[in-house]
């Protein structure tokens, strides 16, 4: 896909409009037909999820740990009614409220987990890929080993280590998030390291070295900003995995106490015995919440992935999109013309907006 980058003259790269440079907006415009439908559906569901999480205190009719209303206790395993549209759980909580509050817990865990693993994974990948040597080799083997390991088991072991298995709100969120973090670090590490190794050989890194730039400057200014373009993709995929891991932990009893926060996996665990007696509302709604949240985020991630891969992109606009590949190439204007113009383009941050995940190679 680099065929269009071979123009020999320094190309004046037109500065793209802001709406083109926003990460997802660009893909949205690039997409077509069904692909656009899937992306839009994903964005809508994800948006609903985030909004629910943020406005949970306003949306939820009751608190997540509330057991009684104005006219007494809610009662246990009450079928859906006007007061409790989704019924009540075996512990006497309102299912609807816990489903809504659960979005908040899930979002918090995603944020903490993904940010922590991005920082750790990106730093390790960058340093490891840039300097190489035995440190690099050891890290690669360690990360491969962790990557191949059942992530849920690793998360269980870690949550025992972090919180001893039982948790308060922030203790539980941190334990869950950090357990997930360790599982995800290898993924970021691998991607960023591979990109770093590739970019390290680029001419503009050489020239920066010749100019006497320090290793730190080259790493963070020249390499890092070019090595991060596949991150939004991994970010979305990891967010959905984070929700599933959190739910899995909760289901096995390593979640957050019901009085500390609402957590879908925990609620499903408590609903397990309800199913046998035909009580469906305690499991259906938290489960659907998980499915919807993961579905939305995954739809976005999948669409981004497809739009990134020319083989999978919708056919009609391939030609048009191919023109944009050049723009997002590692060096604006093409590697061949990476004279002062190319480097200047780099310095001004022209090509670093993360939307450019389409240029894998």
């Amino acid at each position, binding site marked *: 896909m680099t065929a269009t980058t071979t123009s020999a003259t320094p190309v004046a790269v037109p500065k793209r409009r802001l709406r083109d440079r926003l990460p997802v907006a660009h893909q949205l415009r690039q997409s077509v*037909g*069904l*692909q656009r*439908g*899937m992306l839009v559906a994903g964005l809508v569901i994800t948006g609903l999820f985030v909004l629910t999480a943020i406005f949970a205190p306003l949306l939820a009719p009751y608190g997540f740990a509330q057991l009684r209303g104005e006219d007494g206790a809610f009662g246990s395993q009450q079928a859906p009614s006007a007061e409790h549209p989704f019924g009540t759980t075996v512990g006497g909580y309102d299912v609807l409220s816990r489903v809504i509050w659960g979005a908040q817990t899930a979002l918090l865990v995603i944020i903490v987990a993904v940010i922590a693993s991005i920082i750790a994974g990106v730093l390790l990948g960058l340093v490891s890929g840039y300097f190489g040597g035995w440190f690099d080799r050891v890290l690669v*083997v*360690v990360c*491969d*080993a*962790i990557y*191949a*390991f*059942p*992530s*849920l*088991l*690793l998360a*269980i*072991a*870690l949550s*025992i*280590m972090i919180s*001893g*298995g039982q948790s308060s709100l922030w203790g539980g969120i941190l334990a869950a998030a950090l357990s997930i973090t360790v599982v995800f670090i290898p993924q970021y590490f691998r991607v960023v390291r591979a990109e770093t190794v590739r970019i390290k050989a680029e001419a503009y890194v050489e020239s920066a070295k010749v100019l006497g730039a320090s290793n730190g400057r080259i790493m963070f200014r020249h390499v890092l900003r070019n090595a991060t373009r596949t991150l939004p993709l991994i970010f979305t995929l990891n967010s*959905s995995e984070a929700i*599933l891991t959190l*739910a*899995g932990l909760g*289901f*096995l*009893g*390593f979640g957050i106490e019901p009085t500390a926060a609402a957590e879908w*996996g925990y609620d*499903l665990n408590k*609903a*397990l015995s309800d*199913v*046998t*007696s*035909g009580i*469906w509302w305690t*499991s*259906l709604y938290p*489960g659907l919440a*998980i*499915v919807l949240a*993961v*579905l939305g985020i*995954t*739809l976005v991630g*999948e669409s981004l992935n497809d739009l990134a891969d020319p*083989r*999978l992109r*919708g*056919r009609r606009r391939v030609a048009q999109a191919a023109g944009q590949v050049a723009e997002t190439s590692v060096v604006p204007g093409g590697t061949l013309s990476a004279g002062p113009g190319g480097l200047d383009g780099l310095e001004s941050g022209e090509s670093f907006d993360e939307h450019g995940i389409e240029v894998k190679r």
Partner: protein
Amino acid sequence: MRALLVIPTVFILVTVVFIVMRATGDPITAALGGKLPPAQLAEAIHNAGYDRPIIVQYFEYLGQIFTGNFGTTLSDNRPVVEVLVTYGTATLELAFYALLVAFIVGIPLGMVAAYVRDRWGDAVLRVFAILCYATPVFFAGMLLKLVFSVWLGVLPVAGRASTGSELEMQFLPFSTGIYTIDAILTGDPAVLGDVLRHAVLPAIALGLLTAGVFLRLVRTNVIGTLSTDYVDAARSRGVAERRLVTKHAYRPALIPIVTVIGLQIALLLGGAVLTETTFEWKGLGFMLAEYLQARDFVAVQGIVAMLAVIVALTNFVVDIIAALIDPRVRY
């Protein structure tokens, strides 16, 4: 070259497990802390050797694993290896059926999706694949239970076999622990039917998770191979598009699946813990969850370390198989 990597991988995994499990303290305090007076607790710790320097314990642990000794559980005092042999067969059986479901569902649907790519059928199938991934196995299991066991009443709610069948299998002179085989050995079709009926829902719940992965993989790879030269050549000879998908493009597209099965083993094992808990399928995952509840971290450490070894070895075997199938891959 690749074979040598198994050793450091196993070594790293057991080390990580050791560090993680022992970072917070010794297993005896975790299991019995608060239940015993401090003096007795200290004595128990001393007897088990947990008051020695951690590095000594670490090397002892490595030595034990090297000789195949994964420790003895605290709560019911059984060797972890015995737990694995007793319950591993159940997990193996479940994983086998789940993979079967994954193949039967994932591969044909993936080919269909590639055939109708970028049309409605494709979109529906892909959303289905994402749903397979997005639905936690325990939720899928609960829904299946609700519909087929409670509402329709056609399949059993939980367990590996009904009590009658289990009794009948007990009288076998030689028991494999794999219920399907044992049931065949009894020669009683009713027992076999009972065992198979118990396996249906757990296999679907766990299998769909992997089916989604297979579907996406087959679709992407078939689309990829459909644009290769030899498929173009076949197309120009007038081979029908449908035949291109089913005969020409699909075989090379299956090679990555073999590799991915290696990674799926990890996913399957993780999923097995959840599936077995949902269906009270008494396998390794079920026992792991039980030991977790009992805070028996020696058992957890042993089982997890052993699973790590299994995963590493399976990946190695899968790599070899991939090399055998695909002449282009050479290590």
